[in-house]
């Protein structure tokens, strides 16, 4: 491979790549992101390869394995270009039909298309599916078009032109000025202005300087950094090299967690390819600028996403935060100026350089510009990764893109920003999301997790779940976080277990304040958010648990009982057969009753009772009604 030495070399390479590609030739793209892999997209790929050989279609059609498309709910996703026919939930059995009907005859296979659940209408083109239609996919959009293992795919889509522009046409100061003007803010959660961070690092007197990509995404239910790193590693690399040039750094690290094997693999390949073309290494694109990058695999600690902990981890020490009254930008890795940005932040940089700060500023709100990728999960119809302009309302995200709440249930709350974000209630559904608005209502942007909850969710239980996660992931260094979370969890366990007193709420509130204000790092500083926000918006639920020993959402095991309504029970025997502890008495034709002493509240009877009977009830805050006498339990034919 010849190294590229100028912008015209890059342009010629791009033309050469494009000349070998026929835009009219059919290309089957198959999503091979982590979500689709879990749905066996690997098997679909093998089936395609075999079937293409069998039907001798090798010359008519290409197959490309792309990164995550985002609509993970409906994976594996197959999109056939140039027509952009989108097939969802494709199984290996469907491959024969796709090749023999769509590829050979141009026929659309109806059963694999997206069906609009409201109207029943079938949608052929990927971009017209409501989930995609309402998004603005600038950073994430190329994921579906390129094979992450092929640098040529990236270059074909104007990849590395921003690098060439930055290195050969702009001075480092101009690059920083552009990023500052675009008002790009850190996508890892803090929302710190990226340009200002770069400038601080550039102006810090010591050398060498380092740049770091933070890909230690550890939130439950969030996977946007992972999908970007797996699906389009070159966009992150390009942003990183541009940043390094602006800062004056010649060495960088990509911190990826070990639990993301595909991200590690694809990034390794990307670095190797970029080195071969000369986008990394000595004298990049003939500009005289040198830069090299290494991958550091993290050992999967949530706290290592915190900048000072991450820096410690790269230094080879335990990933624990340090008090950083002197910024990492001035004294970071090995006490040298270090600029650390999140994956998504770096991936935004090439867009800004290519299209200009004014274009970037045209999207978003007053304080937050551009787009943000969210991981939309929980009780929502279309789960997946969504990229929207800043300022879109929560309602649009949940209902227009997410397709609303399953089974027509009522929305209750949305938790944004990962485990240490707050729960936002219905009254703020029209909130335009940006860094500042979310903070105002007691939550945060965080890395962009969004967990939707419906009426069946107990907010006290949710607070307990997240506190449990954070107590587990706290490094244990400082006392407020370690001991505070330990006692917060104890109190929350008491509340959900029906053992709490009213005094406990006061103790809980005292702790949330001290943990928030007293902790060493942002993990502790934000850890009480789930408790603070649920106490603020759902205090009645806490009070019901404590005063009435009642769980309004019927979730907390210790506070509910299962009861069979004798009027509704059809004595079918299903629950008797399935009860794991033999707590249900009754036979066919004899109405069943539950022995509360034997019942372990697993909920099996509730699940197996046929919907048309719905005889098993959950009760909370009241004792089970007395059992009906045996003689009235016999179901006669007449009564039926």
């Amino acid at each position, binding site marked *: 491979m010849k190294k590229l030495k100028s912008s015209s070399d890059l342009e010629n390479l791009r033309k050469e790549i494009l000349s070998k590609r026929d835009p009219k030739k059919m290309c089957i793209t198959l999503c091979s992101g982590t979500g689709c892999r879990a749905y066996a997209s690997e098997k679909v790929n093998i089936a395609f390869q075999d079937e293409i050989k069998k039907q001798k279609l090798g010359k008519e059609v290409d197959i490309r394995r792309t990164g995550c498309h985002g609509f993970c709910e409906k994976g594996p996703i197959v999109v056939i270009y140039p027509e952009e026919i989108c097939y969802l939930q494709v199984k290996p059995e469907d491959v024969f039909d796709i090749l023999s009907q769509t590829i050979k005859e141009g026929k659309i296979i109806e059963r694999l298309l997206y069906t609009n659940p409201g109207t029943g209408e079938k949608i052929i083109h990927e971009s017209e599916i409501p989930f995609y239609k309402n998004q603005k996919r600038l950073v994430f959009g190329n994921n579906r078009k390129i094979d992450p293992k092929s640098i040529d795919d990236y270059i074909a889509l104007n990849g590395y032109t921003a690098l060439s522009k930055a290195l050969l046409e702009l001075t480092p100061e101009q690059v920083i000025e552009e990023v500052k003007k675009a008002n790009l803010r850190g996508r890892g959660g803090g929302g710190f202005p990226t340009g200002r961070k770069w400038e601080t690092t550039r102006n810090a007197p010591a050398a060498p300087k380092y740049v770091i990509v933070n890909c230690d995404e550890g939130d439950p239910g969030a996977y946007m950094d992972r999908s970007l790193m797996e699906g389009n590693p070159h966009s992150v690399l390009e942003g990183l090299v541009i940043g390094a040039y602006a800062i004056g750094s010649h060495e960088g690290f990509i911190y990826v967690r070990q639990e993301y094997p595909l991200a590690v693999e694809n990034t390794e390949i990307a670095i190797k390819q970029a080195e071969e073309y000369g986008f990394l290494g000595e004298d990049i694109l003939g500009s005289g600028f040198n830069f090299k990058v290494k991958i550091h695999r993290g050992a999967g600690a949530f706290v290592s996403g915190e900048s000072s902990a991450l820096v410690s981890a790269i230094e080879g020490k335990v990933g624990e935060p340090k008090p950083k009254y002197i910024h990492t930008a001035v004294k970071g890795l090995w006490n040298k100026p270090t600029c650390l940005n999140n994956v998504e932040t770096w991936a935004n940089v090439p867009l800004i350089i290519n299209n200009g700060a004014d274009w970037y500023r045209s999207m978003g709100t007053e304080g937050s510009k551009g787009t943000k990728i969210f991981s939309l999960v929980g009780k929502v119809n279309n789960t997946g990764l969504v990229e929207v302009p800043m300022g879109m309302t929560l309602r649009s995200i949940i209902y227009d893109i997410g397709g609303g709440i399953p089974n027509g249930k009522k929305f209750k709350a949305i938790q944004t920003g990962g485990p240490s974000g707050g729960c936002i209630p219905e009254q703020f559904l029209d909130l335009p999301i940006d860094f500042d608005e979310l903070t105002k209502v007691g939550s945060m942007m965080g890395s962009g997790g969004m967990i939707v909850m419906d009426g069946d969710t107990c907010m006290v239980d949710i607070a307990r779940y997240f506190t449990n996660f954070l107590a587990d992931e706290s490094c244990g260094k*400082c006392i407020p976080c370690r001991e*505070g979370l330990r006692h917060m969890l104890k109190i929350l366990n008491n509340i959900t277990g029906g053992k709490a007193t009213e005094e406990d709420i006061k103790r809980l509130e005292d702790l949330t304040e001290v943990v928030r204000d007293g902790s060493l790092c942002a993990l502790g500083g934000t850890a009480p958010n789930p408790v603070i926000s649920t106490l603020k918006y759902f205090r009645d639920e806490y009070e019901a648990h404590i005063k009435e020993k009642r769980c309004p959402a019927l979730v907390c095991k210790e506070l509910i009982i299962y009861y069979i309504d004798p009027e509704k029970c059809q004595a079918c025997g299903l629950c008797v057969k399935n009860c794991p502890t033999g707590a249900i008495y009754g036979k066919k034709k004899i109405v069943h009753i539950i022995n509360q002493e034997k019942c372990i509240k697993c909920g099996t009877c509730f699940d197996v009772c046929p919907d048309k009977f719905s005889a098993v009830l959950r009760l909370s805050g009241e004792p089970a009604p007395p059992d009906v006498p045996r003689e009235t339990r016999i179901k006669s034919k007449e009564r039926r």
Partner: protein
Amino acid sequence: MRTITLEIDEKKVKAEEGMTILQAAKSVGIDIPTLCYHEKLEPYGACRLCMVEITKNKRSRLVTSCCYPVEEGLIVKTDTEKVNKIRKTIIELLLPLAPTGPIMTLGAKYGLCEYIKKTEVEGEWKVKGFRFPTEQNDCTLCGLCVRYCAEIKKENAVGFIGRGVDRHIAILPEKGGICIFCRECYNLCDGGKFPHEAEAF
């Protein structure tokens, strides 16, 4: 060395560049409670008892004075309501864990425990009530033993094990032999766990 003037508790204080707020306060006799701080060791900032409220550019925030370097014109308050609430709650969290002399003395300052004199020389500490009861394990995880062994003795014979609520200290079996003769960290231990642990080892 440049001299920096700052204000601590409405007192003008002159300090050398590179000093911490804690050192500057000590130099003029302002007492800030600490647990994990030791003048021979690198600042650690884990016990959070030395928190103070600083005002810079009209914005105030809470920082640990053992780590924060003095800055020109900085306004420091060591005794605000917020600071005291944090300190008091931290001691409340520590008392059931390690009810020993140094922590009781701190507790007495915030009205959490008292010293009952029996005779002129003898007496005992009493805690007024444990608001956050937990199992006593005599260790506050201040890390003094771990850091002393690493930074001063350069032996690394003691270390932390586990994460979060499971964190505890342990002696490396291969290095235990050194501990029998050294014992220099015994005097540093506030919770009283270390001598006990090491003897058992």
